[in-house]
């Protein structure tokens, strides 16, 4: 039984077929990258897994659980965290509070104990804050814990979103273009972080990325999408040398610019 199994996932928008019978498997403790030219359907795939969108047909099974039967807010509870291509942060909240939202499920308090500040609430809050601070430390943002999220640079925002995703105690992380807009040193930090997530914390990572250097450097497995169809899959070396992949990228201008990154 696979860790994350995606089988024959299909999604159309109006007349446009965004994903056409795409199948994919992510193993445990694996960094699996999803690449492809713009419009290939990568973010759509993510949105289907995290239940932001409903597929037309297909299956998504995570550790034996059928994800398509669940509401979007139940995904985090299964141990799946995600970041967004557009960086969806809670801008008026502090960094600590942003990460604390990620601790939402693990905080066991009800309205009554919160309203009356009962002992159990205080205990849970304290633990939640400690854990959130720990996560901020992991991404190097603990000094700004009380700053508003809106004041961060793009690189810092992506790191904060990552911290929030890790806060759900995930076994699988869905990262949507985490390196987009980062400079070289930030990108390096990110790759170190992602690797340590796999090695030290045993987290599997499904990664959408345009930055080929990052993809080649850290991936265990790479899948390539084009026009909603999976056209290749294999190790980074195999993909790098695959004629089908090169052709797909040359067809759109992306490959050259990606190689340059």
């Amino acid at each position, binding site marked *: 039984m696979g860790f994350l199994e995606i089988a024959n996932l299909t999604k159309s928008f109006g007349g446009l077929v965004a994903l056409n019978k795409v199948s994919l498997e992510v193993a445990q403790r694996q960094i699996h990258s999803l690449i492809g030219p713009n419009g290939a359907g990568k973010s759509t795939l993510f949105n289907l897994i995290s239940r932001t969108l409903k597929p037309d047909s297909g299956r998504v099974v995570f550790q034996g659980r059928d994800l398509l039967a669940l509401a979007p807010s139940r995904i985090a509870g299964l141990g799946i965290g995600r970041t967004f291509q557009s960086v969806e942060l809670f801008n008026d909240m502090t960094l600590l509070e942003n990460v604390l*939202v990620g601790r939402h499920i693990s905080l066991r308090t009800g309205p009554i104990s919160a309203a009356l500040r009962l002992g159990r609430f205080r205990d849970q809050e304290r633990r939640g804050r400690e854990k959130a601070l720990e996560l901020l430390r992991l991404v190097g943002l603990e000094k700004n814990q009380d700053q508003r999220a809106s004041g961060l640079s793009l690189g810092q925002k992506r790191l904060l979103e990552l911290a929030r995703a890790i806060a759900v105690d995930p076994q699988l992380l869905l990262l949507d273009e985490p390196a987009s807009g980062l400079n070289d040193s930030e990108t390096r930090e990110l790759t170190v972080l992602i690797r340590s997530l796999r090695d030290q914390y045993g987290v599997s990572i499904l990664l959408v990325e345009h930055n080929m250097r990052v993809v080649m450097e850290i991936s265990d497995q790479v899948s390539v999408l084009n026009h909603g169809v999976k056209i290749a899959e294999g190790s980074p070396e195999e993909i790098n040398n695959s004629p089908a992949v090169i052709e797909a990228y040359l067809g759109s201008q992306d490959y050259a610019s990606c190689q340059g990154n």
Partner: protein
Amino acid sequence: MTDALRLRSRILWHLAWLILLAGLLLLAPKLDVYILYVLTIVCLNVILATGLNLVTGYTGQISLCHAGFLGIGAYACPLFMIHCHLPYLLALLLGGLVAGLAGLMVGVPALRVRGLYLAMVTLGFGEIVFLVLHHWQGLTGGPLGLEVPAATIGGLVIEGDLRLFYLFVIAAVVLIIIARNLIDSKIGRAFRAISHSEMAAQASGVDLPTYKTLSFALSALYAGLAGGLYSQLLGYLSPDPFGLNESILYLTMVVVGGMGSVAGPVLGASLLALLPEFLRDFKEYQDFILSAVLLVVILFLPSGIFGLGRSGWAGLRGMIRERGLTGGAGG
């Protein structure tokens, strides 16, 4: 700001509130009856605005029917006292709960529609409540009114401006503290997350239906409790104070004072309760000024006056420069 400084400013802030409160309670017997009345109204508005802020300021949902929840609580409380012979405090609580249930009911369509359509749903609901209060004469007395029995708490009859004032102040303080506790907890954070990005909130495990309806229910509960207190102040109820114009007034308080902060509604409620006093000679201009202020604030000061205090002049200049009209709250 260093930890020590932050702690010190928080202590000072709380100390200021404590002094204000103590001062009010101690000075009260010496105050003019009319001033007591105005301050009592301020407390009433504060409770209502604080509750409304939960759903509007924090969760980003529009409500044009809060005067309706106020009305439900205002009628339910004395009706429980009259027909079920319940003591005042119990009737007050039950009245609040009935309003809270109504809020829950409004919360359900909130899940299906958003933004502008939600505004219309709340508008319709508020009008329905008003008309029911008006027409169900058997229960409410309709336009002829309902006489409210005097409240007794622990043997003490709450009549006279002074005792009413103490009741209102204590209620307001308790409810503000509870609101602040809720906001500074996973519930408040869930509310705020929803208003920023429903997608990201869900991805973090926040269940939208639960928290959206909870925000409506809680804010309606607050309005209902305020209503039960209000009925004591009025002594005689009619449907008039519970219509659309009043709902808009309460929304104005929250917007002008500052959505998304605990002190904002307090500020807004105080300002708007005191405004008629300052404009006593210009009674006709009151409505105009209120509406104009609302328009100016929503266009240029989306975080309200309190937000202005927080970010200061620099923030204001920046906002005007970029015509910061994104509103902040999602739809």
